[in-house]
C-alpha cells in the first residue's frame, strides 16, 4: 500500500520544463481538463462562487433578523434560506474548496506528475455543476426550496415539496463526486509519491488530506443511504423514518450524525494541514512534533466516529448513553490540544514575520480555539440540554467552520497563490482583508453566544424585543464581513487572475520548505513528469 514510484532510468530529463505539446486551449482546456492544476483551479472558482451564493443567503437571513418582527420574508421562506445556506456552504463551498487545494497541491507536494485518475478527476468536478444547479433550483420549484434544515431531519423531509427530491438527488451526485475525489486522492498519495517521500516525510497537508479522504469514503455512503431511505419513504411507501408507518425519525438523526460528525472533521482537518504548513514557514522553524501531529490527526478521525449522538442529547437518550458520548467528545479535545500546542511550540522562539498567510494562521489558531472551547461546553450533556438549538450552537459551529475552515483556506490561498498565479498579492490588501474579516467575524458571531445563553432559538424569523440589540450588531457585522469577502474577490483574486502584481519568485517565503517550492512560479502546466530525486528530508529536489 505504501508503494512509491521507482526511480526512472533517465535522470537527465528536466522535469521543470513546461511541455506544451498537446496543451488544449479555450473551452476545451476546461471542459476536458485532466490536468490537476486546471481542475484545482476550477474547484476553487466553483467553491468561491457557491461561497458567494451561500453568503448572500446568510445576508438575507441577517437582514430579516436585523430587527424583531417580520420585515421582509415570511417564516417559510426564512427556513428555506437557513436550509439552503447550510447545504450550499457545506457541500458546495467548503468541501469543493478543500478538494481544489488538494488537486493543486498534493501532486506538487509529493512529487507526482498528476492525480492517479485524471479523467475521473474531471468527472468528479463536472458532476458538481448539475448537482449545484439542481440544489439551487429548489427555490423555483413548487413549494420552494427545502426548509427542513441542512440536517434534513425526518419527518419534516417527508412533508416537503418536489425540491426535497431534487436536493436529495443533488446530494447523491455531490456524494459520488466526493467519493471519486477521495479515491483519487488516496491512490495518488499511496501509490504515486516520489522515491524517498516516505509516509512520515509527507507534508502535513498531504497527511491531513489522506485521513480526510478515508473519512469521506466511510461516511458519504452512509449519508447516501440515509437520504435514499428518505426518498423511498417519500415515494415508495416504505416507513424507515415515518412514524405514521411505524418508522423511527430519531433513527434518522442517529444515521445522519454518524455521517455528520465526521463531516465536521472532513471540513476542518485539511485546514489543520494548511496551518501546519504555514506556521513553520513564517516561524522559520521545522514543525514542532510532526509525528504527534500525524497521530493526533488520526486520533481525531477515529474518535469522530464515536461521538455522533452528542448532537442528540435532547432526544431522550439514556444517561449511560449521554455519559459515553459526553466523555468520548471531551476526549477529542486531547489530540486537538496536541495540535494547537504544537503550533504554539513551533512559533515559540521562532523568527516570526506576519505576512498575510501567517496572520490568517494565527487568527485561525486564536479564533478556532474559541470555537473548540464552546464545543467542549456543548459536549457536556447537562449544559447542552439547555443550549440545544439555541444561537449558542450557531455561534459555536460558525467559530469552527468560518474561523476554522474558511480562515484556514484564506491562509492557504495567500501562501500558495503566488505559486498558482505567478504574481505576488498586495500585502496591504491581504492585511486589510484579514483584519476586516477577523473583526467583523467576531462582531457577527460573538454576540450570538449571549443570544443563545439568553435562550434565543435558532431557525426563527422573529424574536422577542429583548434580543434586538445583539441581533442588530450581528447583522451589521455580517454585512461588513460579506463586504470584506467582496473586497477579497475584487482586489486580491481578480488582479491575481489577471496577472497583476510583482512576479513571484520560485520560493516567495524564506522559511517555506517542500517540493512545491522546487518548481517555478507559476507552476508549469506539467511538473514532475519524471519522479524527482529527493534529499534526505524529502523537501528538496537533488536530481
Amino acid at each position, binding site marked *: *500500500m505504501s508503494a512509491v514510484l521507482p526511480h526512472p532510468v533517465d535522470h537527465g530529463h528536466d522535469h521543470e520544463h513546461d511541455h506544451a505539446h498537446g496543451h488544449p486551449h479555450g473551452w476545451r482546456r476546461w471542459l476536458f481538463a485532466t490536468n490537476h492544476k486546471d481542475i484545482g483551479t476550477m474547484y476553487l472558482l466553483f467553491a468561491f462562487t457557491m461561497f458567494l451564493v451561500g453568503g448572500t443567503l446568510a445576508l438575507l437571513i441577517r437582514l430579516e433578523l436585523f430587527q424583531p418582527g417580520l420585515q421582509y420574508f415570511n417564516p417559510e421562506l426564512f427556513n428555506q434560506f437557513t436550509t439552503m445556506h447550510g447545504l450550499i456552504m457545506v457541500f458546495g463551498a467548503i468541501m469543493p474548496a478543500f478538494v481544489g487545494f488538494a488537486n493543486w497541491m498534493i501532486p506538487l507536494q509529493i512529487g507526482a506528475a498528476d492525480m492517479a485518475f485524471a479523467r475521473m478527476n474531471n468527472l468528479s468536478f463536472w458532476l458538481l455543476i448539475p448537482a449545484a444547479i439542481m440544489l439551487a433550483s429548489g427555490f423555483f420549484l413548487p413549494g420552494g426550496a427545502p426548509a427542513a434544515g441542512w440536517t434534513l431531519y425526518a419527518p419534516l423531509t417527508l412533508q416537503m415539496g418536489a425540491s426535497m427530491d431534487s436536493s436529495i438527488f443533488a446530494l447523491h451526485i455531490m456524494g459520488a463526486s466526493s467519493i471519486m475525489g477521495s479515491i483519487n486522492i488516496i*491512490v495518488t498519495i499511496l501509490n504515486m509519491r516520489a522515491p524517498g517521500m516516505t509516509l512520515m516525510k509527507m507534508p502535513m497537508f498531504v497527511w491531513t488530506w489522506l485521513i480526510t479522504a478515508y473519512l469521506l*469514503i466511510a461516511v458519504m*455512503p452512509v449519508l447516501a*443511504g440515509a437520504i435514499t*431511505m428518505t426518498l423511498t419513504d417519500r415515494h415508495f411507501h416504505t416507513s424507515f423514518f415515518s412514524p405514521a408507518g411505524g418508522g423511527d425519525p430519531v433513527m434518522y438523526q442517529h444515521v445522519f450524525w454518524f455521517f455528520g460528525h465526521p463531516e465536521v472533521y472532513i471540513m476542518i482537518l485539511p485546514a489543520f494541514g494548511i496551518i501546519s504548513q504555514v506556521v513553520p514557514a513564517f516561524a522559520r522553524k521545522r514543525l514542532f512534533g510532526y509525528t504527534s501531529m500525524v497521530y493526533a490527526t488520526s486520533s481525531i478521525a477515529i474518535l469522530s466516529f464515536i461521538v455522533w449522538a452528542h448532537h442528540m442529547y435532547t432526544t431522550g437518550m439514556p444517561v449511560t448513553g449521554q455519559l459515553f458520548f459526553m466523555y468520548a467528545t471531551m476526549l477529542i479535545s486531547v489530540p486537538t490540544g496536541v495540535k494547537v500546542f504544537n503550533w504554539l511550540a513551533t512559533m515559540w522562539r521562532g523568527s516570526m514575520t506576519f505576512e498575510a498567510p501567517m496572520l490568517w494562521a494565527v487568527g485561525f489558531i486564536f479564533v478556532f480555539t474559541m470555537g473548540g472551547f464552546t464545543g467542549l461546553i456543548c459536549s457536556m450533556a447537562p449544559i447542552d440540554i439547555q443550549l440545544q438549538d439555541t444561537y449558542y450552537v450557531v455561534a459555536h459551529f460558525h467559530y469552527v467552520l468560518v474561523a476554522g475552515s474558511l480562515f484556514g483556506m484564506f491562509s492557504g490561498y495567500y501562501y500558495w497563490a503566488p505559486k498558482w498565479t505567478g504574481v505576488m498579492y498586495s500585502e496591504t490588501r491581504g492585511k486589510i482583508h484579514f483584519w476586516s474579516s477577523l473583526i467583523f467575524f467576531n462582531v457577527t458571531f460573538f454576540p450570538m453566544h449571549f443570544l443563545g445563553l439568553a435562550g434565543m432559538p435558532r431557525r426563527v424569523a422573529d424574536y422577542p424585543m429583548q434580543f434586538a440589540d445583539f441581533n442588530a450588531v450581528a447583522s451589521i457585522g455580517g454585512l461588513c464581513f460579506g463586504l470584506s469577502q467582496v473586497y477579497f474577490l475584487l482586489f486580491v483574486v481578480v488582479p491575481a487572475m489577471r496577472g497583476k502584481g510583482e512576479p513571484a519568485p520560485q520560493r516567495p517565503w524564506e522559511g517555506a520548505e517542500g517540493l512545491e517550492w522546487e518548481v517555478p512560479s507559476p507552476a508549469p502546466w506539467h511538473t514532475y513528469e519524471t519522479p524527482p530525486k529527493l534529499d534526505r528530508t524529502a523537501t528538496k529536489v537533488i536530481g
Partner: protein
Amino acid sequence: MALTSEQRRKNLRLAVALFSVALVFALGFVAKALLFGL
C-alpha cells in the same frame, strides 16, 4: 511521463478496493435496514 502498466494496475486495484468499501457502506446499510429493520 505516462504511468507504466504496472503502476496503472496498482492504482486500479487500490481504487477498486476503496470503491467496494464505499459500496458496502451504502448498500449494506440500506439492506440491513430493509431486511432486519433499523
